[in-house]
């Protein structure tokens, strides 16, 4: 009888969903997820199969409140020079991790380091899954 090697292999393996796919599943529910290392009492981001330094596999998925502070920012000229500029920034999230994102709703050159921002899930596109972007807290009220 023919064996489905893929199915057997999947049963034998420990990890059923990659860290990236789990992250994206949360994004699809409108949530910014991160991991928390229970052994180290520290957040882990980007998501991994083990915590850096300790190697702990005791990682719990948590959902961020989505609030943060702009740490660094740049206004990017599109490679196709006739397209609009866009923002890319690093944000220190209140739960204690840093991530790349962009600030929307205001001109990129109005994005200032230290600005308080809140997450909004971008719907993504045909080939792009949903992903978190941010808007100024003042603007969101």
């Amino acid at each position: 009888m023919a064996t489905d090697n893929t199915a057997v292999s999947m049963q034998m393996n420990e990890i059923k969903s990659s860290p990236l796919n789990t992250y994206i599943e949360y994004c699809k529910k409108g949530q910014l997820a991160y991991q928390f290392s229970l052994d180290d009492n520290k957040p882990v981001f980007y998501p991994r199969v083990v915590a850096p330094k300790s190697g702990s596999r005791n990682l719990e998925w948590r959902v961020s409140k989505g609030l943060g502070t702009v740490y660094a920012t740049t206004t990017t000229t599109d490679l196709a020079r006739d397209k609009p500029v866009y923002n890319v920034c690093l944000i220190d999230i209140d739960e204690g991790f840093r991530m790349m994102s962009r600030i929307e709703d205001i001109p990129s050159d109005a994005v200032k380091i230290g600005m308080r921002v809140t997450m909004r899930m971008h719907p993504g596109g045909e080939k792009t899954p949903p992903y978190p972007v941010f808007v100024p807290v003042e603007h969101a009220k």
Partner: protein
Amino acid sequence: MSQTTLKRGSVAIVGAAESDLGQVAPDMSPVDLMAQATMRALDDCGLKLSDIDGVFAACTQLSMTTSDVCEYLGIQPKYQDSTRIGGSAFMSLLAHAQLALQSGLCSVALITYGSTQRSMTRALASPRENFHYETIYRLRSPVGAYAMAASRHMHQYGTTRDQIAEVAVSARKWALLNPRAWEKDPLTIEDVKKARPVSSPFTVRDCCLVNDGGGAIIVTTAERAKSLKSKPVYVLGVGECMSHRNISNMPDLTVSGAAISGPQAYAMAGVKSSDVKVLGLYDAFTINPILFLEDLGFCPKGEGGRFVEGGRIAPGGQLAVNTSGGGLSYCHPGMYGLMILIEVTRQVRGDAGARQVKGADIGIAHGNGGVLSTQCTAILGSEATV
């Protein structure tokens, strides 16, 4: 790399040469350029191809770089290493060559690099790697990462746009003294600021060139170096630090791993920053020399912008930095670290022509790779300093 194993002055760079640079003949391959530079570097010291028994090479276009080099040149190496950590790889390879030479694993080491990224485009020569958590935001990498480091430095320390632009202006002044430099025209702070925007605060003039080019250095034991026709340039100290891979994981965007690699190299060399007469600081972008001057101890943290003002690192200034014209104005063939080692070697030999720094007996060649990710420092010295 353990600096307690490596011995100050145990090996020396005895041959150093560039290949063709800038825009090379159509359909030249990276290994064509490596071979050309290798023969020039051998001519420089009087060794033959058959003397090379250690091969150290890295190239974004050749995933098995040392295999390509050895096949092309007909070398069956006793020892080889293709470390790939971006533009700083060549300072790291110098440390690895030192370890191999000291251990007797080889006796004459070739370190070589070549790129045809201008001819074949950067997108093909250095394909982007996917990292979802950054790629999805369309960061223009590497420039956007360095631009964010600049934004943070400006915010935290009051570094000004003009100070950052002055790094490019100083590099251009040095390039005008170097006949092999790509850029031939003067540049002002206003020119830098008014150039085409790329990723704020940077314009295209804050970014390194995209050139073809390559080079080679020959390294051997201090003992063997003494019998050769060239003036040996000794490896006094080396250090390296890998702080992150992606910019969103850099612990502090205003402090590079040079703050770790520098002190390692100083400790091994037994020298201080004030002993260093000439500096090659990997200037992929204008913020780099500012960060590295701070992290290598030439000024306090946060003072780099003010430090470079008033032509201090330009020809005639108090500190000679990037005397070839740097990656900004001389030649940047993708992984520029080897070109820095070649220039600092020439300066320490006293062979740098119109741009020679007087009394340049100790020099620093500092390499940077990725997005400030890997930092490798080499301190080179003349015979008198050993």
